[in-house]
């Protein structure tokens, strides 16, 4: 019996080990590759073979890559700000005020977040051209609201719905207007939820590829995913794997650090997006 139990334990931890290795290994290997260069790059190394910073110098020495990081930062930050601003007031109305058609409205918003983005590409392309914002940050900020805004509204609504009625009742009795209720009563309580949704929306905007690929035309306007995605050599044989891995590590490490710091919040936010009750 004890032997059986021991075997079970070993089996369980073996499974845990497989999960961890499978999750972490590709990133580990990218880091190992990013520090290798020259011929070391083309030997398969399971362990770090050296500490060569040439790939990082190549990437950070390129002006366009630095521009890309700047573009991505500006676009993601403004997208998040816009979504949170529009999302907080809207989700207050959706979570705390009873009106006809509320359920339908919520479902519509959820449906928008599930839109295949390709279905709006042609129409958005025309809109972006019409507004004269092609190949500017605004093209991305505008188009990214299609997935960040519904998501923000949805998650903030589920958070707000769970807050007790009493806190609001007291303010209503005191004659506070809905605007005062939002800014003075709910906003202080909502900070944790806003950090979560903001972070998830930021990651979404940071990672987006289709719109950024279609709405930019010059190298200096590219966002990080487009810059990395289109980083290629003159031919199949000359793909600069070292610099690609270095660039990947540079843009991924801050994300991983953020995700690990806000682990609990992110998991709560992700699951509030869909599974509740």
């Amino acid at each position, binding site marked *: 019996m004890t032997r059986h139990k021991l075997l079970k334990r070993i089996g369980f931890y073996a499974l845990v080990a497989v999960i961890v290795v499978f999750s972490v290994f590709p990133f580990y290997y990218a880091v190992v590759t990013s520090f290798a260069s020259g011929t070391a790059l*083309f030997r398969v190394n399971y362990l770090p073979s050296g500490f060569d910073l040439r790939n990082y110098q190549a990437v950070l020495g390129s002006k366009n890559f630095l521009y890309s990081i700047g573009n991505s930062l500006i676009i993601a930050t403004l997208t998040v700000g816009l979504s949170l601003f529009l999302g907080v007031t809207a989700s207050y*109305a959706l979570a705390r005020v009873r009106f006809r058609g509320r359920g339908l*409205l919520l479902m519509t918003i959820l449906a928008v977040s599930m839109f295949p983005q390709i279905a709006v590409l042609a129409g958005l392309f025309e809109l972006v051209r019409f507004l004269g914002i092609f190949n500017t940050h605004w093209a991305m900020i*505008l188009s990214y609201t299609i997935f960040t805004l519904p998501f923000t509204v949805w998650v903030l609504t589920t958070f707000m719905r769970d807050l007790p009625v009493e806190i609001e009742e007291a303010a209503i009795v005191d004659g506070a207007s809905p605007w005062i209720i939002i800014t003075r009563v709910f906003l202080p309580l909502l900070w944790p939820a806003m950090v979560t949704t903001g972070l998830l929306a930021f990651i979404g905007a940071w990672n987006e590829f*289709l719109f950024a690929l279609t709405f930019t035309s010059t190298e200096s306007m590219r966002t990080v995913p487009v810059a*990395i995605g289109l980083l290629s050599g003159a031919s199949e044989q000359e793909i600069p794997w070292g610099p690609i891995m270095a660039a990947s590590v540079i843009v991924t490490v801050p*994300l991983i650090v953020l995700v690990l710091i806000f682990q609990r919040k992110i998991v709560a936010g*992700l699951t509030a997006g869909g599974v509740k*009750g």
Partner: protein
Amino acid sequence: MTDPIAGRSGGPSLRQRRQRAAFWFLAPMLFALLCVAAWPLARTIWFSLTNTTLSNLYGGEWIGFDNYLSMRTLSSGRVVWRGTLVDPAWWNAVWNTVRFSLISVGFETVLGLIVALVLNAEFKGRALVRAAILIPWAIPTIVSAKMWAWMLNDQFGILNDILLRLGLIGEKIAWTASTETAMTAVLIVDIWKTTPFMALLILAGLQMVPRDIYEAARIDGIHPVKVFFRVTLPLIKPALMVAVIFRMLDALRIFDLIYVLTPNSSATKTMSVISRENMIDFDKFAYGAAQSTLLFAIIAVFVSAYIWLGRVDLGGEGSK
């Protein structure tokens, strides 16, 4: 409204005032969604009924459903069908998308369930495992595509090296370039990247199952496997259904991973990829718009059927 006394006597009631405020709070958000979602979608559908080209966005003429299907009788009497619906490249993309979605979501569900069950157990280092599985989720899709493209590289890739050392393959495989393995390569990367999301959603469902149920089952001496299929699975079914549809929708519209990992491979070209290619790269803007409209229609039908058949409670309000 500004006069507080008027508000008290005979003015709109508190409920009405709140509803009016709610309208103004919703208006900006709805306007934004109208601009970025409803209007572009309507324009895409309109474009699909014209012969618009990328270089002349406003010069399109109405051609009805010719982009979808049209019939022409040649002078020789032969009947020629044209349009997306008789385009073998389109049907190849449909088939690729469906195949990719079913296989990837299937694997992700099973693996996600396993990971979620592991994380739901209490053991030392659980926090560490949870942190580890968040890493694939946090890595941008494009970055993971590049990372895996390097690992799957035919000459210098580590995967071929491992498989050769283990004796599982006789010679190096050109994973992303060969038509036989391109889909497998895409599936591997997608499953790696999105299983964590699935696991976290299922875990949230698992954590709502009361612990005393397991306790009771243990005391009664019921085999854990039986407990899983008879108790756990039915209880987490709602969470599972929602997780599956979220992933399915994501899989059906996949673009970025395939565009970067296996560009120009007809074995992996999906509906999104072929639509954009026609729209932007081949200057068949309206034709691509027709294809993306079809993709939208397919997804809409699929979602409706799924929600209707599975009675999925997306809002989570039914249980409240």
